[in-house]
């Protein structure tokens, strides 16, 4: 269907059978959660299951078909899901009475620490933020299934070590934690080195002893 599948000629993926593609598309539309290629494959009756490469090729072809439509088939952490394109959210959000939840800075900072420093204990989170972390923040993050206890630290009290989940990545529309900007990137963004060269800085140090 899409003529520009040069890629598929080179790659080993077999061109998906038209019927397979139709079924894959229907499954992805009907599922209310992201589906991996393997999960899609397993929806087919056992004797009719296409090979994984064929499923993947069908998925590629569907992604291509929807390239210019207002919805897209997107790969997030736990699989592929159809979703409305971001640029249309302004209109679509008006469908729903409820305002999307807002998250407090305290919650987002806690989440950021877990995302970047995982696995991390609550005590370590508190050290970094310099304040205690309220139980309701941890509870909210656990309940939203954005974080989970991945292990326990072998120190007295065996505190839980928190890590992020696939649901966290799904919710923030990314496929892997690597898609987050690195702390180095953030740091450089925030720490212009040339600050050091500003002459005003020098004077400030002299007041030290007053």
């Amino acid at each position, binding site marked *: 269907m899409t003529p520009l599948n040069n890629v598929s000629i080179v790659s080993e993926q077999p061109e998906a059978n038209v019927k397979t593609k139709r079924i894959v598309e229907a499954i992805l539309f009907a599922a209310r959660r992201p589906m991996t290629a393997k999960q899609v494959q397993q929806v087919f009756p056992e004797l009719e299951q296409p090979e994984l490469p064929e499923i993947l090729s069908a998925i590629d072809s569907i992604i291509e078909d929807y390239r210019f439509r207002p919805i897209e088939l997107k790969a997030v952490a736990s699989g592929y899901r159809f*979703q409305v394109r971001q640029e249309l959210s302004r209109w679509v959000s008006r469908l729903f009475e409820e305002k999307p939840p807002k998250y407090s800075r305290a919650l987002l900072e806690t989440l950021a620490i877990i995302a970047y420093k995982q696995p991390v204990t609550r005590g370590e989170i508190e050290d970094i933020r310099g*304040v205690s972390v309220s139980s309701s923040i941890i509870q909210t993050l656990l309940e939203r299934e954005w974080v989970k206890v991945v292990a326990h630290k072998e120190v007295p009290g065996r505190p839980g070590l928190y890590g992020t989940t696939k649901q966290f990545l799904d919710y923030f529309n990314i496929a892997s934690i690597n898609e*987050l900007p690195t702390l180095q990137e953030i740091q450089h963004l925030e720490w212009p080195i040339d600050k050091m060269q500003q002459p005003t800085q020098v004077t400030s140090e002299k007041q030290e002893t007053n």
Partner: protein
Amino acid sequence: MTAIASIEVMPLPFAMVNGAPFEKLPDDLYIPPDALEVFLDLFEGPLDLLLYLIRRQNLDIVNIPIAQITQQYISYIKLMGELNMELAAEYLVMAALLAEIKSRMLLPRQIEGDDEEEDPRATLIRRLQEYECIKAAAEEIDLLARIERDIFAIDVDVSLLGVDQPLPDVQLNDMLLALKDVFKRVAQLSHHQITKEALSVRERMATILEYLKGENNLLFSQLFVRKEGRHGVVVSFLAILELGKEGLIEIIQSEPCSEIRVRAVSSPSETQGL
């Protein structure tokens, strides 16, 4: 603009910073004096407040003038104290740490080899840097496109396919036990109180609100069901009182001895006017 407002509204004398009277909050930090929690909420803790002070004056974090920043920090938390804010212990601990660092810097340096422990300033700076980095990371996360706000799931109907989608089964007991857990959590949060009204009253409250939904108003007497007997009347009556107390309905009597009417606080016909 806000600065002017702040001078007018603020009744309290402010702290002294660097010997100068501290008469107004910085422009970008105006909060009505009584919104105490808002003030504390502005900062996520002592590190955040310190960072703010450093950034506001464009100071080089790697080389913070400890004495100056300590004074400002302490004047800020003094201010919080004057505003009767319940100061979190973390703020005071930081004040103590800053004071300690400051006093050490004033003391003559000890002989070299004795200097094994880390410069407390370096530790503080590292913490500040790490915190600022996390703070920025949190902002980045907040900017990511997210479900419910920027990304919407699609919903394609399958109900006509003759497919039976099994629904989760719930045992009454599981629900009750979940509730018990809520109370256990709540009990730990000390001052939260859950009133224990008769259930039938709460249910009746919901029912009455529903009756009133499509109606402009109803006769008081219409809200009672004769066959429910005395108990039913009491339940309805309590429910009406409770709804009135919670401001969910209005009880109207246009003139003495006329029939009492009840209506939802704002009937839909009124609110929809274009």
